[in-house]
């Protein structure tokens, strides 16, 4: 006898048992059940890329209070909320990022510009400042965290270290009560002594050092950049300058990578950023091109993968470092550019300690807070929202090579001045390249060889 059965679905399995229950889901992964799966996914990726653009509103807030241009920004190592800023009028403000209020305001911390700021301990209870008034001052500041409020901030400095020359930069040793200052020389100070304990300047050097930083992993090593277009390494154990390279252009700022101890980042006057491996100083590891004017400041993210730079072109740019394992450069293979109409030349930039925010201080006297990822959503995010965000992210990543998705990712709006300057710069560089090319063509074969771009930037290495 034949056995006959007919397909029948049990409705009880496909509708929720009680009202409010989730609807049961049944899947069939057979590709013939999912026509156009790829095309639909592409559409979804395109939408995700567009949504990313729609949601990218990076500006969070601006912290006012300075009368003149903001020159320096600094943050303590172990605080998420405290940031200190120093200005050209000698004013010093301690901001709380959480409440966006001023915890401490010293309108006349120095006479004239404050050129350097750094916290003397990881918690951020003491602050060192230096200025063009030839003084270094140590301040006691309350971080407002409530833990160590033994003494509230005072308007008078704890200590003043006077010297003969004006200072350009200051940095504190990671663990010891030492700090380094940069003027025409690099000097090491002991907090308890009123005169520098040593002078580390390179023997033949006759320059103005513009920035000095201690290495984060090996705190006895420090580096400086100076007006003689140099990048110099010092060791306080030997007490002298170890090595230096002379570059084509001078650098304005310097930052050590928090994760790759030998990696240093230079913000150069020639519109580029350079990463150096200090073990091989003959050439930079990577050149980051994008700014259309001198780069004034740079700072690594605490993750060590990204870094932020601020420039004379009135933009803040966030880069992804490939040597540290980042993406190509950023979304669409280019760095992220932040700008507003009212922001002037950016003189200082830092990352917040949780790597979610970027701060920039600019010539217009404001400290601005930006999101590190432009399309980040602030506030509480539900699990479903998070899942859909992650899905969108992976979609965009997978389809970023698609023509349309890539175009959406690459497209960015720049201020007209920056855009035009970029075009002009491109024209000039291209003309130079063509000229070189022609010159090479008309010289004897093999006489003039093109020099690698990385090699070009270094004039000489000295030790």
């Amino acid at each position, binding site marked *: 006898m034949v056995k006959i059965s007919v397909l*029948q*679905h049990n409705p009880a399995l496909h509708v929720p048992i009680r009202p409010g229950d989730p609807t049961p889901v049944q899947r069939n992964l057979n590709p013939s059940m999912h026509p156009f799966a790829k095309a639909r996914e592409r*559409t979804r990726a395109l939408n995700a890329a567009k949504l990313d653009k729609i949601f990218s509103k990076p500006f969070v807030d601006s912290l006012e209070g300075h009368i003149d241009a903001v020159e320096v920004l600094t943050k303590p190592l172990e605080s998420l909320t405290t940031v200190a800023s120093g200005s050209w009028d000698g004013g010093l403000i301690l901001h709380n990022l959480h409440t966006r209020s001023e915890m401490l305001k010293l309108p006349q911390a120095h006479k004239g510009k404050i050129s350097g700021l750094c916290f003397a301990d990881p918690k951020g209870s003491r602050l060192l400042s230096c200025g063009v008034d030839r003084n270094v001052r140590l301040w006691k500041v309350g971080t407002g965290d409530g833990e160590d409020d033994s003494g509230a901030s005072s308007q008078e400095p704890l200590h003043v270290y006077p010297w003969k020359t004006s200072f350009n930069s200051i940095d504190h040793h990671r663990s010891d009560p030492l700090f380094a200052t940069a003027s025409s020389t690099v000097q090491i100070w002991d907090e308890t002594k009123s005169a520098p304990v040593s002078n580390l300047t390179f023997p033949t050097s006759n320059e103005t050092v513009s920035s000095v930083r201690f290495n984060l992993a090996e705190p006895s090593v420090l580096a400086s950049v100076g007006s003689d277009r140099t990048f110099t390494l010092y060791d306080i154990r030997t007490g002298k300058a170890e090595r230096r390279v002379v570059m084509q252009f001078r650098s304005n700022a310097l930052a050590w990578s928090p994760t790759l101890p030998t990696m240093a980042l230079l913000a150069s006057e020639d519109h580029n950023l350079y990463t150096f491996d200090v073990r091989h100083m003959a050439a930079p590891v990577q050149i980051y091109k994008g700014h259309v004017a001198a780069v004034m400041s740079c700072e690594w993210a605490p993750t060590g993968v990204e870094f932020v730079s601020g420039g004379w072109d009135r933009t803040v740019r966030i880069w992804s470092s490939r040597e540290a394992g980042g993406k190509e450069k950023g979304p669409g293979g280019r760095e992220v550019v932040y700008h507003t109409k009212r922001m002037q030349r950016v003189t200082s930039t830092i990352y917040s300690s949780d790597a979610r925010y970027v701060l920039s201080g600019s010539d217009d006297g404001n400290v601005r807070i930006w999101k590190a990822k432009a399309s980040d959503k602030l506030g509480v995010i539900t699990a479903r929202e998070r899942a859909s965000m992650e899905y969108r992210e992976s979609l965009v990543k997978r389809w970023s090579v698609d023509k349309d998705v890539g175009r959406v990712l690459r497209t960015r709006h720049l201020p007209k001045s920056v855009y035009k300057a970029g075009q002009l710069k491109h024209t000039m560089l291209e003309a130079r390249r063509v000229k070189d*090319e022609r010159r090479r063509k008309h010289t004897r074969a093999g006489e003039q060889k093109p020099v690698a771009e990385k090699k070009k930037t270094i004039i000489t290495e000295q030790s």
Partner: protein
Amino acid sequence: MDALIARADAIRPLSELRAVKTRDSGKGKAKANSKGKSKDTSTSNSDYTLQSISSHVNVPKSLAPLDPSSSKSKNDEVPKYNHIANKKLRSQLVHQHALNSNLSKNALETQQNLLSLAADDAGSIQVTGPLEKTWRISQDEIVASVGGEAAKGRRELTFGPGQGAKRMKWSQNGRHLVFISGKGGTKVSSVDWMGGNVNCEVDLLAGSNLAGAGGNGGGGEAARDVTFLQDQSFFAVAQKRNVFVYDRDGVEVHRLNNIIDPLRLDFLPWHWLLVAVTNSGHLSYTDTTTGTQIAVHRTKLGACNTLTQNRHNAVVHLGHQNGCVTLWTPNLPKPAVQILSHMGPVTSISVNPSDGGSAGSVNMPGRYMATAGRDGKVKIWDCRNWKGVVREWTVRGAGDVELEWSQKGYLGVLSGGSVNVYHPPHIVTPYTGSSSSAAPPLYLSHPIPHKPLQCLRFEPFSDVLAIGHNKGLSSILVPGVGEPQFDSLEADPFENAKARREREVKGLLDKIQPDLITLDPSMVGKFDSAALSASGSSLVATAAQSLLDKSDKVKWGANVQVKNVGVDVPFSRMKRVERLAVQGKLDTTGAGDDSEDSDVEMKEGGDGDSDDEGGLTREEMSKKRKMRGKNKSLKRYLRKQRKNVVDPQVLAVRAKVDRMREEAKAKKLQMKAGGAVEENKRKSALDRFKAGSGK
């Protein structure tokens, strides 16, 4: 507490773990030659904590340990990517490949589990002996044997003589049915088939339509065709003057003014396009999300009575009065494919929505097309190769033949006074018997006494076949034709209102642009090699690699890149290999001394024409070198000497060289085929007496 933990041996101190690891790696090195043993050591060094919890936890697939050696042994096609110089990229590719193979394996497993679940639900007829024929089984027997709820699929709706269902369409999920009935086709009904409710009935004769814009066009007009849009909430009706869109309650919501005198309708669900073909032979695509007409094509083949879509590439198939079948996309003003399929008007077309029926088949879905014509023939076509039919047979009975494939690949054919259903594998297997027009074995047959029979539609996700005939609409049970396992994220017969709304929004967001409709839907996200070769300039980036890469050499032709490189990229930007290639100094012979490479070289030499392509080959280089230092007149003389001279000696030598090459090639092939076998064979003492051993 510490003692307790120590006794449980839950977690070993880190230092100890490290020690074990280093010891094991040392062992592994020592036993590197024996793969199996080193593998054992690697498994034994896992700590107890991991072992104790590993049975209860699931490591994410991306974090699961990759064992390239094991995957290699399973399928030998893990590519080594040796041609990629960048080490990082190479390892990334290998990793990606391993991940992909893992993923596909897991997906297959999951799918099989799902299918085994569904297999219990699937309908079937099991015969015990060869003498029992499934087509002998009548509907009464089926109904009697399945009984209960399933038997409710068998229904007979009687509307009266001449008022039967003319055209009908199921919704995507198979829950709702919309059909044209009434005298002259003046009534359109949308019913919830599974729930047994009527959603609405639109009487095109009645006065309800006389008011408003549609009154003129809709009132008193017969409907020609009907289709649901994205779901049951809207359906479009092709009426005499225009296409009208009605909502679920039968309220006319749109009139598509620019489609005049439509005959057939269909809806492309993923592109949200309403396709209509008119009496004048115009095919129009209307975007139902925006209401704009995105394309109108003139078929130039007169009134068209047959329209169907391939659900897997959204290509529209039209059947014409002159026996032609044409395939259309909105992007081409002419048919993508045109075939003369019948010696008479085409009456019905259907495209196989399944991928061949059996699980794990490699057929692409939508590969086969079935056509029926007024010449009484049913033909099966292979959509990848239009040269001739796969199978054809003649059907009995007068009247137009209608046919449709079911989701599982069963073919229903409506002809004369009965409906016949055929098995999947036999329909598409080419018939090799003596008479080329034998019908495939019959699966099920059902006679209907109310001629003419007008249309048939298989219900998705169910074993029901709905047939419209002269007096009404009857549905029969055909076990096994429906897909037992629906995917709730695609089409769910049991979805509630909220899920429907959500699906509509999601579907709108995922709407595919109409320009992406092509014959090959897998084109999306693929490398467009044709465009690449056309543009040429984008070749430059990989020119050097492809100069060295043997496979590319065969693909593009050896000399093409050299030209491109020279034209587009300044010399200073080239890599060294490219510079050498441009200068003609690149030694292509030494690049890879594989046997394949030399094969390629031989082929090129054998052509003899490759020299004319402009790049500097070896021969040209040698000529150039010979010319060095000669003055102009002597050069001219030598050139003329080379040209147009038929030297018997040279010809003979050339022939000899060619012959030797051929021999060498044949020998190599032979070695490849039989060499491995011979190596494995042990030589015996008697081998020296073999015929070929003397050489």
